[in-house]
């Protein structure tokens, strides 16, 4: 198992370096798709750290609602994936539960969960990318930080979307554990902000659509959408995600993202 993993990461590292150095192997559409993602990532670099509050509104077909309240702390890590601490406040029975994640572009993420009833810190498998996050229509992978290496790309077209000029790019997940065969992403050509994503399931049929709205700019650079609406076309359920209290460069450091800070997270 371990050997297989090492082999896999070696292979994926190899393929990555191939992408980087032997770029002539890409078709013009693939190159343009990659360039757009690199540019989008580049425009957001330098936020250092952030804190924000999130409310999730889960709705099923019958219109029943359920609420999730979550606090997020994130730390930008250069040349690696970000670190994040997720603190649950609602539903009340999971209050005090906290989740620490060190994400990596290629290697498996490192994840720990703190269970307040037992005061237990549990290392968990990060393989679960496709599963629902807290019973919502968001999968874990929909909420993880965007890294260029996580996908390969193909530029499809320029399209008008709600009065915005957008790039329409197809993305293919590199991770075999992804729940998707592909995503179609619309980014506006002006600021390279994601406006909409269509998710295609493992059978390559349209599963979900995510739309971003109420974008706000922070520190005259970083754009964040206050609202994200996920609609599942196959089961009729939806989840609305609302962000508030965004703060950047608050002075968080590595020491705010370890086992100790996980245990006292509030």
């Amino acid at each position: 198992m371990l050997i297989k993993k090492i082999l896999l990461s070696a292979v994926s590292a190899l393929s990555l370096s191939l992408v980087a150095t032997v770029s002539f192997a890409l078709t013009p559409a693939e190159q343009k798709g990659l360039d757009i993602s690199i540019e989008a990532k580049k425009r957001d670099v330098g936020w250092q750290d952030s804190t924000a509050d999130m409310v999730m509104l889960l709705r099923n077909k019958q219109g029943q609602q359920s609420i999730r309240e979550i606090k997020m702390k994130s730390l930008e890590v250069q040349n690696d994936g970000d670190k994040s601490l997720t603190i649950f406040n609602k539903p009340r029975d999971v209050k005090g539960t906290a989740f620490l994640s060190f994400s990596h572009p290629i290697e498996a993420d490192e994840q720990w969960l703190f269970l307040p009833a037992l005061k237990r810190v549990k290392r968990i498998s990060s393989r679960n990318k496709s599963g629902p996050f807290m019973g919502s229509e968001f999968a874990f992978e929909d909420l993880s930080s965007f890294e260029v290496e996580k996908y390969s790309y193909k530029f499809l077209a320029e399209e008008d979307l709600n009065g915005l000029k957008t790039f329409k790019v197809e993305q293919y997940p590199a991770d075999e554990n992804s729940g998707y065969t592909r995503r179609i992403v619309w980014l506006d050509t002006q600021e390279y902000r994601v406006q909409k994503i269509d998710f295609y399931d493992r059978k390559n049929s349209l599963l979900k659509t995510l739309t971003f709205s109420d974008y706000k700019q922070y520190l005259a650079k970083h754009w964040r959408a206050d609202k994200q609406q996920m609609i599942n076309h196959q089961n009729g359920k939806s989840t609305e995600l609302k962000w508030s209290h965004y703060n950047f460069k608050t002075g968080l450091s590595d020491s705010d993202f370890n086992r100790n800070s996980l245990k006292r997270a509030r």
Partner: protein
Amino acid sequence: MELLLHTRLNTKFTRTMTALAVCTSVLLVQPLSASEVANDVEFEASGNITVEQRYFFKEALYAEQLSHNQSSLSIEPELYWQWNGGSDSLVFSPFYRVDSQDENRTHGDIRELAYVHASDDWELRVGIRKEFWGVTEFQHLVDVINQTDGVEDFDGEDKLGQQMVNLSLVNDWGIVDVFLLQGFRERTYAGGEGRLRGALVVDKNNVSYESSAGQQHLDFAIRWAHSMGDFDFGAYWFHGTNREAYLTPSLQDPTSSLVEYSLQQHYVQMEQLGVDIQATLGDWLWKFESIYRNTSFESFWATQTGFEYSFIGVFDSNLDLGLLMEHSWDSRGEVELGTQGSLMQNDLFLGARLAFNDMQSSELLMGIGSDLDHNAFSFIIEASRRIGDNFIASLDVRLLQSNDENDLLYTLSSDDHAQLSLAWYF
């Protein structure tokens, strides 16, 4: 005799104190509610109230025991204050349970009453706290800081608050925790009316200690914990009072003409080394725990080894299925019932956990434990689901089977039961 009286007074005192504490905290919750900000101090109140009903399928094995039904109500509020942007905090979490049958189960405890100061690379925690160590699921072998609140539940996962001073140092090579523990807590056991006990009742007023300092012995522990890639390591050394008592039958009242026996608790000093390792490799979690314990009576090794494998999205759905297997081993091998226990000397555990990942967080857990040295089984099912936004309903069924009188499960084999509980979280 003096010791006995001391213990009695102590228990009474703790009881009154916790009852008082529970009342005050409940009163406090009312006027302040949710969260308030004053002078940069943030306050939060939360907690749960749970009603629980147990039904024992068979008649009791021993005369005094309750027959079929046992009801109880418990409350556990948590009050939390933080200031200096969270660098300083105070938590207060009392607990109280009222039981309809077992007077030992009507009890209270201060689960937490602690001040924590957090700096960049160190943390100081002072007061009554809970501290969990370990990685396995079916037995928590290396977990040693807190005493088990044994009367609470069958699984032994409920713990009594422990007084401590804990300094935690964060280094590049891991976190080092130093503990000074004072005020030893005696384990709680089912009373005469209670089920889930052996033939003899453990006498909570007949307690002795090897150390002349008794309950006031100052225990010490140092632990190192670190994550390296896919591996999480922990190792510790503990010196102090053994949390497990040696239980010996003794005459309940030597002056009485009635010959009635109960179990005397004797707590000895121990030194213990503990190690826990988890390897997180894709869908596999490999787990290992081991202790080496040395007391004036004996020294031995014990291990708990196993794995957990997860299937994500089984049957093309959102369901996750986790399969667990663990083995317990103890160098003391099999012992006579009643002597200090290696009840898990060669036991195999199999489990399956089904998470529905739905809005209600529905979950189903099944487990089978089997003593490989003789014919004894335990079987558990735990199902839970959220109702509305603030309630959790759970149903637990535990079946215990043994044909061997030398097994603890034999004395419990009439105690098969179902437990239904409804918890309100606020």
